């Protein structure tokens, strides 16, 4: 369990942000792995099998969960507004930011992702966030590569449009 915990927590962390929720999903994943161990045929790696099991489990958990209205992108905190404003003002700033600013960016991402489907969230986090390849995502989810590409294409459009509308809102409110 110690060996696979980081992987399971990473997968659960793509879908949930609160530590308690991540841990609950990870616990359920290990329990399922234990009860469904007979379905592991030994064709691929155990880690790959566990990753796929955890991904599908988390997808189902998110799909069956009710939306959390407090997490939508409609209202931005002061930190989030500042982050957007600063990033727009200096487009050539290096990637490395203070942890506080990084947190504001992650908060903003979470708000936008909460308005999107679980499938959109998954591909965006895995490809654009973690820089996995289409093939890797296909292996980890069990989806075909063409499905991953199509899903990522559409998800990127929706994410970009959501950020554009946030920026549009900011520009309108600026004096």
């Amino acid at each position, binding site marked *: 369990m110690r060996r696979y915990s980081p992987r399971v927590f990473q997968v659960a962390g793509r879908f949930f942000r609160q530590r308690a929720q991540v841990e609950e999903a990870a*616990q359920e994943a290990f329990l399922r792995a234990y009860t469904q161990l007979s379905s592991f045929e030994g064709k691929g790696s155990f880690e790959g099998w566990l990753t796929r099991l955890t991904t599908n489990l988390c997808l189902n958990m998110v799909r069956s969960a009710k939306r959390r209205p407090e997490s939508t992108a409609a209202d931005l905190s002061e930190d989030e507004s500042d982050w957007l404003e600063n990033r727009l003002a200096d487009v050539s700033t290096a990637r490395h930011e203070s942890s506080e600013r990084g947190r504001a960016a992650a908060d903003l991402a979470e708000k*936008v992702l909460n308005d999107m489907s679980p499938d959109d969230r998954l591909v965006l986090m895995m490809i*654009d966030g973690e820089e996995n390849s289409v093939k890797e995502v296909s292996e980890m989810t069990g989806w075909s590569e063409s499905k991953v590409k199509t899903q990522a294409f559409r998800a990127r459009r929706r994410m*970009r*449009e959501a950020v554009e509308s946030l920026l549009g809102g900011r520009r309108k409110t600026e004096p």
Partner: protein
Amino acid sequence: MRDNHIIRMLEERAIDGLSEGEVITIEAHSADCSACLRAYEAARLAAEMLRARASETAEPTPFFKTRVMASIREKQLSPELPALLRMWKAAGSLVSMMAVLVVVLIGLTVYSSSSGTQADELLAGQNIYSPEFVVLEPGALDDGLAYDQVLSTMYDLGDFDGQ
């Protein structure tokens, strides 16, 4: 202009996956196209946000392993239901509905057969070929009853009476 230019490039690959040539093309185009510039800015910010979100990691609490082991032990202790019982639980409502339907059908069959017997008895009581019916209601015989049949019925009655 916007639809035919850089938007598709921004959606086909992650920003980090764009080649140097593609980035130059996008930036050159965005300099003259405000709509594409907005889209490019939004795509870049979206990528940054996603990287920031993906860099967050959750660590297991010290009691995580204990909790998982407890849940596995609990699972082991809870008796597994026999296959037949599990199947019954799954199909329970369907089987119950079918049983109710069978009972209703049996009830209807019994009811219809008993009411059918009563009707036969009633019909037998009003047998149009009975002597009483032939004598008392001759006008009702409009179904082509032959005259000699009527006579034979009357004679049979007479024989029965010993006349």
